[in-house]
């Protein structure tokens, strides 16, 4: 099993940390992982993206042109990465701020209104965990237990009381994700 994922959105949305938690969770399951950010003079409000690869085998290239799954969280990223999903692959997106929804018909498209869910939870900071939940529902490459361990490993101890809240957000994401279109 090899899962090649791109997560893309605005800086500040938690794109990089979501990737990190996913990578950590994979590591907890004894899988090989790589986390490669597109780094640059990026800042809050700019675009941010990260390539995460989780595999049973040794990972060669940490950067790719085509992905199994694209998680897209703003319009710029939609424009840039919609075409980078392998045919038959998966695109998950939040429609908040999306003017041009995805148009491809050869991939599975899922909608996660993560922003809405996070607002309902009265904590917009868990936005990225809602998205992670959506992804894990669609592609259960790691289970909640691994994520739990991954969270504990990636968060400093003083933040461990937040693990439960994050878990709640992941569950909410798992419930809220909707299949919009099946690949034809």
């Amino acid at each position, binding site marked *: 099993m090899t899962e090649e994922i791109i997560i893309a959105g605005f800086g500040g949305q938690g794109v990089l940390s979501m990737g990190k938690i996913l*990578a950590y969770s994979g590591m907890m399951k004894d899988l*090989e*992982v*790589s*986390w*490669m950010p597109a*780094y*640059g003079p990026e800042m809050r409000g700019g675009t941010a993206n990260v390539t995460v690869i989780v595999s049973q085998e040794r*990972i060669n290239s*940490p950067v790719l042109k085509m992905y199994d799954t694209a998680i897209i969280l703003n319009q710029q990223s939609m424009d840039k990465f919609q075409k980078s999903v392998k045919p038959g692959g998966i695109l998950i997106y939040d429609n908040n701020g999306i003017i041009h929804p995805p148009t491809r018909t050869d991939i599975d498209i899922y909608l996660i209104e993560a922003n809405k869910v996070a607002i309902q939870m009265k904590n917009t900071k868990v936005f990225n965990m809602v998205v992670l939940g959506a992804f894990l529902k669609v592609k259960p490459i790691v289970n909640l237990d691994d994520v739990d361990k991954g969270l504990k490993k990636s968060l400093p101890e003083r933040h461990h009381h937040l693990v439960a809240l994050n878990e709640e957000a992941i569950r909410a994401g798992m419930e809220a994700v909707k299949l919009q279109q099946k690949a034809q």
Partner: protein
Amino acid sequence: MGELRLMKGNEAIAEAAIRCGCDAYFGYPITPQSEILEYLTLENPEPKTGMVVLQAESEIAAINMVYGSSACGKKAMTSSSSPGISLKQEGISYIAGAELPALIVNVVRGGPGLGTIQPSQSDYFQSVKGGGHGDYKLIVLAPNSVQEQYDFVALGFELAFKYRNPVLMLSDGAIGQMMEKVELTDYIPRLTNEEVIKRTGSWATHGKPEYRKHNIVTSLNLQPEPQEQHNHHLQAKYKEIEENELRYEKFQCEDAEYVFVAYGTSSRLCQKAIQLGREKGLKLGIIRPITLFPYPSKPIKKAAKKVKAFLSVEMSAGQMVEDVRLAVNGKRPVEHYGRYGGMIPMPDEILEAMEELIAKVEKKAQKKAEKKAKKKAEKKAKKEQK
């Protein structure tokens, strides 16, 4: 198995330094390697291991602090990225001239000048063909994973002390910034002052005992004759390093007809290209230099006997390709493919470049075969006429 951690390449270097008993780190921030200094500052190893971590006032100051520390027999290191490494060249040449052990890390970014902050491999010439002035060589290690970034710190120090020669770890922004699994090793305590004297007493400056003459650490010699002698000695040492310390890796070369030569990040990209190519039935392999000095010229020369052509892939305009050509010495076509200025070539574009090379080589071979067949036919016709 040691503790596993998900780390950035830069963080791995810093953690390795603390764990391998490094005495001192001197640095100055520059993207994409600032995490080394940041991590060490946050970890603050001094109260625990006694390791000194200091942000110097400049890159030049940092390398000269390393010069001073290693003159005292200490395990000292510095790190920077391309423009900062250029600033350090004078100091590196002095350290090489004075025959001191030191570890220098270059997390390369796009150039020339201030360039970009994205990954590149355009400092190859600077690393293996001089960089500073004078006839000197660095031992150059080229990691291609976060684990190797970690492992090569201890290895670098080991080689530096074995040969009393500066070691350069030539990384790049991609490996520095990416996160992978790292298996950590146990803490090795720093050497005590007595142990340092025992290990380096014959050359380092830590106070003159009564039983021997004082040690002098210098790269200056006003007489040309002894300086020539010193250079002879250095060249003999580099030869010994070439004989003993070559490291390289071959991947899927057993049946390969076309072979990539690539180091660092590029070697990982090529491995993916090989995977994609093999799915199409192309017999591809890679020779990956791990040490860039010494360079694996002999294995490449040997491979040239059965390989049809080589493609050197670098994130540069074509630097290492010259060494591949020297090794192959005209026996087979050697071409270069690269992106530069901070761009990373994608595995499929590397495969396309390889396919172009294959088409070219095969077209040439076909033409040659056709010509040969035609000549043969003509000869036969002539014979029949007679």
